[in-house]
Each structure stands twice: as C-alpha cells, then as structure tokens.
C-alpha cells in the first residue's frame, strides 16, 4: 500500500526537521516512496517549511530525478552518454521499448515500469549500464537488460 503524501511529508519532517535546507531530503523521500511528487505533497511541504508552493515546485522541476507526473513503481534509468552509446546502448533501449511498449520517459499502463534515459551514471568502465531502482546493472546486452526488467515486481 502506498502511503498518502501528507503522511510521508509528516514523517520526513519528523526525521529531518522543517528547515529550508531540508527540502531536498523531504522531496527525495516522497519521490522515492511514490516514484513521483504529487501536488498534495508539494503543498504539504510548503506549509510545513514556510516556503511558497511555487518555490517548492520550482525546485522539484529543476532536478531530473524528481517528477511531477506519476511514474511506474520501478524506474529504469539507462545511461545515454558516450561510453555506453559506443557499447550498444541504443540496441538495449530499443529492445526495452519493444518489449515493454513504451517510449523513453513513458510508463506502462499497469504502472509497473518507467524507462528513462539519463546522462552518465559513472559506470563507463562496465558499459553499457543502467540503474534499476537505484541499483546498478552493468555490461548489459539487450537480452540481459530485458530479463532484468522482466523480473521486477
């Protein structure tokens, strides 16, 4: 069961406090639990921290890992920088798109999966690589990548 955003925010405030400098931590917490940051969470954070809603929203919209659109419970981030591209990133992306029927930054209808591309994730020595819910997966082939994603809950 997903918790409601206000509850997560309240939890976060207990954990980190409500100072402005805790904003990234609060947002990260919501973003990790829900895969995205709903407006209700933004409002709750604004209220608790005394930052205006627009300013909280502005921070959310700045960072690539935050999303104001619902995303899947599993997030795949495939590296799109040169070392991975030179080792076959495009075939992997194509294989994933074909198998799961979504475009980059798309989410499957069942809400299970979002696939994103992202700049260098610092795994160039083991390219091509991706992060799945934050965990690294390296030396990918199209088959291997699809298998990993298939196995997700």
């Amino acid at each position: 069961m997903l918790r409601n955003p206000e509850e997560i925010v309240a939890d976060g405030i207990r954990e980190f406090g409500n100072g402005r400098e805790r904003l990234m931590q609060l947002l990260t917490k919501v973003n990790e639990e829900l895969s995205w940051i709903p407006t209700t969470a933004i409002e709750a954070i604004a209220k608790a921290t005394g930052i205006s809603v627009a300013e909280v929203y502005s921070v959310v919209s700045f960072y690539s890992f935050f999303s104001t659109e619902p995303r899947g419970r599993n997030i795949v981030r495939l590296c799109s920088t040169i070392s991975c591209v030179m080792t076959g990133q495009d075939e992997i992306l194509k294989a994933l798109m074909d198998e799961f029927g979504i475009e980059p930054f798309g989410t499957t209808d069942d809400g299970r999966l979002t696939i994103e591309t992202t700049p260098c994730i610092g795994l160039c020595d083991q390219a091509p690589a991706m992060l799945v819910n934050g965990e690294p997966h390296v030396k990918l082939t199209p088959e291997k990548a699809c298998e990993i994603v298939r196995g997700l809950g």
Partner: protein
Amino acid sequence: MEKKVLLAEDQPEFGAGFELALTMSPADVVYIVRDSGIKGRGGAGFPTGIKWNLAGAASSDVKYVICNADEGEPGTFKDRILLEKYSERLIEGMAIGGYAIGSSHGIIYLRAEYPYLIPAIEEARKNMIDRGLLGKNIRGKGFDFDVEIRTGSGAYICGEETALIESLEGRSGFPRNKPPFPVNSGYLNKPTIVNNVETFCAVPHIILGGSEWYADLGIGDCSGTKLFSISGDVEKPGVYELPLGAPLKDLLELAGAKDIQAVQVGGASGRTIRATEIHRSLSYDDLPPGGSVIVFDSTVNMLDVLENFMEFFVHESCGQCAPCREGTLQLMNAVEDLISGDICSEESLNSYFRLAEVMRITSKCGLGQTAVNCFVDIINNFVDFTGECVSGECCCERGDQ
C-alpha cells in the same frame, strides 16, 4: 607507470592521518597541505591549502566541510571507486579538514546516481564513531566532528560547488555569483570548504607522508598522484592511479588503447586531442586532468560524439545565464546541421566559433565556459570540410552545381 597511493594495496590504517593531525595545531595542518602543493581533484585545480587557509582565517563559530561526491562529468567514475572502498579515508580527510579550519560539520553531497554507495559510507562513519574518531571531544582534544550524507537528484550542475551549496540549502542548483566565495560565505552563509572526494582521500596520506614526500610523487612541477577513469575503446577500462604530470601515453598503454583516433581528457568539458598528441602530459599546465579519459578508435564518427556531448550540455545547463542557456542550444543546432549536411563549410561556422569564445568568457560558471571545448576541439581536429556536400540545400550551395 602506475604509482598507487590512494589505491595502494598496503595502506596506512584508516584514521592514522587524522590522529597525527590532532597532535598538530590546525594552522600546521593547513601548512602541510599547502606545502604539499596538492590542487583540487574535482577539476578546477584550485590549491587546496590556500582554500583551507582562507576558510580557517574566516571568523565564524560555525563552518562547514563539504565533500563534493556529485561526480557527474561524463566518463568519470574514480570517486565511485574511492567511495566503495575508501569511505573511511574520505571521512578521515574531511575530519582533518574540519580540524584545520575549525569546523565540526561535515556533509557528503552524493549524486543521486550512487545510492548504492550509501551503505558503505554509513558503515565507514560507524566504524569511525566506534573508534572514537568522530563525535564529541575527539581524542580528548576538544574537537567535535561528524558527517552527514545528503543526496542530489539528477543535476550535473550541482557538482559546481556553489550550485551544490544551493542544492543543500533546498534550492535549485543555480550557481552563485562570485564573490563571495564559499570560504567566506558558503553553506548557510557560513565559511565552507568544498573539496572533491579524491582531494579529501589524499589528505591523510599527505599528513602521514609529509608535504615533501607528496610533492615528489608527481612529475615535474606537479605534485602527488591522480586517479583517472578511462573508458571507451580500451581493453581494460577502469581507474588507474598515476603520478600527476605523467604522459597520457602511459595511461593509454595501461588501459590497452589501440587504433586511437581521438582521446578526450577531462570529460565532456575537457579537451579532445588527436592520436598524434598523446605524448602530452596530464597536468594542470597541459591537459587539465579531470577524472575522465575517453578513447575513440578510428571507427567512431566524432560528430556523433560531439552531438552526444552537446545534448548533455543542453540538458544540464542550469539555464540562468544567457550565453550558456541559449548558447548550448545554438551549438547543438550547429552540430545537427553539420551532421545533416546543412552546414558544410568552415566559414558557415564562423558565428558559432565566435559564440564559443563568448560563452567561454561570459558564462557565469564552469559549465558554460567549458561546454564549448568539445565543440571547438572536435570541429577543429576531426571534421573534414573538403569532401562532397551531402545535402542539396547546404550553406555553400556547392550541392547545386
């Protein structure tokens, strides 16, 4: 050849450098670091001792020690290796920094792409606490220090130290106008030192080995060793530790590079050179040694590489200053035109070269200033304008004839 200090199999015990530092005066610690000649390993190469000296001299009850673990430069992964295996060394280095400048608060700003490193860092912290090397009144010296891990959320620009501070303060990562510099007014407007993971990791070695020993590790005027992440068309990609000032050639040999067309040193914002130039040295005076080296063999179309990098900069420009926000977009546009053949002569690129120079000298931060390097280098070194025009509607209209 490799010279392993930070990555040595056989290293001094974690914490030994800090314990030794605690027997000295903070000022002496700063002097040792300064005299070692170490320059920041995060890319900008600012002398660490001078930075610490300034922060130490700033008067404030509260100061901060921030470790920049936002490693985002394409092709760089050396800090990842250090964090995986040497987090204790890192925290030790931060504690020494805290002692040196008079700060009790350490923050590690870890990029969001490395969440799986958090357990290792936490464990390192716990070990240090268990051994009495973090916490209150460490070793009875009346010095308190602890570190906290904070994460970014997918923004390369937050590697720039003032953007990083903005992010820590709960804002978008817009680099600040400087001055004031963080050493005077950084996190929460308090004096702050921001250093790279590798810089902090080197500090305990410097304290233990002494400044002269460290300085002598480098070649020529360079001091110390440096980690390089190498990837691309090489047999053995990975992280290598070399004396600073070593020729690029040595590194390429170690990693097994063959059929070299181009080498990019310092990541997307570094320089891209031809195979004929690999004798050049990895030093602040020659090829600025960021963390990253990427090798491209003769099969690679360098315009595709350039496009990939320009996409990166368009995506990662924070957007606040006009030359970078609009300039990266224009350069990207030019690259696309080059690829499609809509631009086929060097003259047509004239305004873009003018733009590149203006971006270099007017952008607010390093991103915009260096985003132009790959454009200038790749076009100058790897694009041949003598061939046939591919498009019928290109700039020179040669295709019409």
